[in-house]
């Protein structure tokens, strides 16, 4: 089948992720949505690698996974910290900083 479909799927996943970031309150879930977006990218990379008959894209995917892992570490640390102070992981509770 046409590899382009994978691209469309990737775009779809990416959008879902983005929408998730917008609609969900819980910081963890929002963060997961971001991860989803990253993985959408991976899918795109792999699919394109296929289309181009080139390996680079697949390699990139691995790199992205590593980066994503790092992000998780940092992210969870921060979210944990604020969760412990506020006893809630809701993003909307955290808005002391505004005009």
């Amino acid at each position, binding site marked *: 089948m046409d590899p382009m479909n994978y691209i469309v799927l990737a775009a779809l996943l990416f959008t879902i992720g983005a929408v998730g970031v*917008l*609609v969900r*309150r819980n910081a963890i879930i*929002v963060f997961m949505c971001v991860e989803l977006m990253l993985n959408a990218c991976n899918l795109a990379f792999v699919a394109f690698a296929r289309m181009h008959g080139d390996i680079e894209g697949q390699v990139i995917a691995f790199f992205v996974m590593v980066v994503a892992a790092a992000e998780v570490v940092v992210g969870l640390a921060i979210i944990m910290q604020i969760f412990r102070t506020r006893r809630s992981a809701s*993003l909307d509770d*955290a*808005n002391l*900083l*505004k*005009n």
Partner: protein
Amino acid sequence: MAVTQHHAYLAAEPAVATAADSPVLSFAWLLFALPLAGAAILLLGGRRTDKWGHLLATVLPIASFALAALILFDLLGRAGDARSVSVPVYEWFAVGDFSAGVNLLVDPLSISFALLITFVGSLIHVYSIGYMAEDPGRRRFFAYLNLFVAAMLVLVLADNFVLLFLGWEGVGLASYLLIGFWQYKPTAATAAKKAFLINRVGDLGLLVAIMIMFAVLGAVSFSEVFAAVPGASDGILLAIGLLLLLGACGKSAQLPLQAWLLDAMEGPTPVSALIHAATMVTAGVYLIVRAGPIFEGAAVAQTAVLAVGAATMLAGGIIASAKDDIKKSLAGSTMSQIGMMVLAAGLGPAGYVAAIAHLITHGFFKAGLFLGAGSVMHAMNEGVDMRRYGGLATKMPITFATFGLGYLAIIGVPLLSGWWTKESIISATFGVGGTTGLVLGSAVIAGALLTAFYMSRMVFMTFLGKPRWEEGVHPHESPANMTVPMVLLAIGSLGLGAFLMLGDRFAGFLAPAVGAEVHHFSVAHAFTAPYGIAALVVLVLGVAVAWAMYLRKPVAQVAPKGSFVTVAARKELYGNEINEGLLMRPGQVLTKALVTIEDKVIDAAVNGLGAGVRDSSSGLGRAQTGFARSYALTMLFGAVIVAATLVVRL
């Protein structure tokens, strides 16, 4: 061409005086430099000069007078048409082809004025020594007087219109300072400001006239301007003429710019005598005569001059007839007399001599009258209401005698100064011939009638009849240093006219300078000609009416209501009311309106801009909600913008 030929100094460019040529003339600038120095010394010297300041200030004009006399003899030593000498001093300022120099023109006209100014001026200084003896500001007063003399001399000696303008505004300043000399009196301060402002309006005319001269005729010096006159279009000449007339009206208190003169009487009496009777107010006449070629080239302008002169002559007479304030009455008389001169000057070459001659004699007797009035006021504790005078003749014989002589001269009693000059004006007016001549002539006759009336009224109310003095007034004759000038002026009122007119002495002297026609003055003719007789008749008539009204029956101490004419006359024919209604009130409204516009519109717009920014700031600021997710939304919105701008091609 009529205009040029009879202007001697146009026909042949005047010989530039040099020390070799004539040491006297080359020092002509001292004429005004001396009094100017006096003013400077007194003003800058401060209290140190209090002791001797007034003496110095008195000596300097006398010195100027002496110099003027020398110059006169120098001129008399020259051929009739070589008596116009220009004395360059230095270049004032010049840009491109424009140049205004401090150059003097010494010719019969200017020197006549110089003599009048310095002589009367000196007398006034002497008189003031006594008159201002008690005043704490005496030094300042003399400084201003000197300043005035200097400015006035610059005015008449200038050989170009710009320098003339300097003197013109200079005398205005001096008059402003002297009217407001007793500045702590609000009335005085207001009068001074009024005088300056109205004069400014006139000066505006002169200023624009000068602009036109340079722009169109390409020069500002008398000789060049007049040389260019023949080539100029009628429209230009008319414009210049009318504008010069406007200037003349301002200085000489002619309609419609007359309103300041009567208020100007707030000033000390010597000031009224010197500035507002003898010299400054006659500057308008000088200007018209000096600018003769222009008026001669613009018939309509000349007609305007005649009209203004006639109207002012009558108006002044009427006002003078109703005022009970002796100085204001005299001021009205001054208006009237100057109106007569202006009228004469408006006649062109035919009237120049008469106008100037009358100007000079008037300078003498009117100054004398004012000094007399001053002396009377001195005696009456500065009271000015003639209704509280009366019967002073015995108490103040010298004053009475001198005042009387001035009186007889001004009303034109035959063979006194006034008669000669007035007669020549009358004859000149009738000389025009036709209805014009008739109308103007009769106007002058009417003027003469009024003169006879109000002056008699003044004398009767002041010196004759029963005393109507206020409590605690003990009239006494004034000290010598006040009476001596009065006597000298009285002598002038007595004989000057004859001296000038017999054998057409003055006419012969002046004519070549101003291009006047010389009319032989025949005494016999003056008595036999119809206008001469008419003049005598109105003279008698005027005196008689005055006698009937103010001597035969006692004078009321408070003015009776009087007819509407009297009321109008007392109110100076509503001149001030008109000014207020036409200029002052609209001006105030305009000012208020603009101030509001400034605050509520222009400045508000600027401040509004700032406020607008601040509002939109807090508006846009609300987007910063503090909710991370809304930020994400904004970013997505941004993504849309990015996408749009990438796809849409401009």
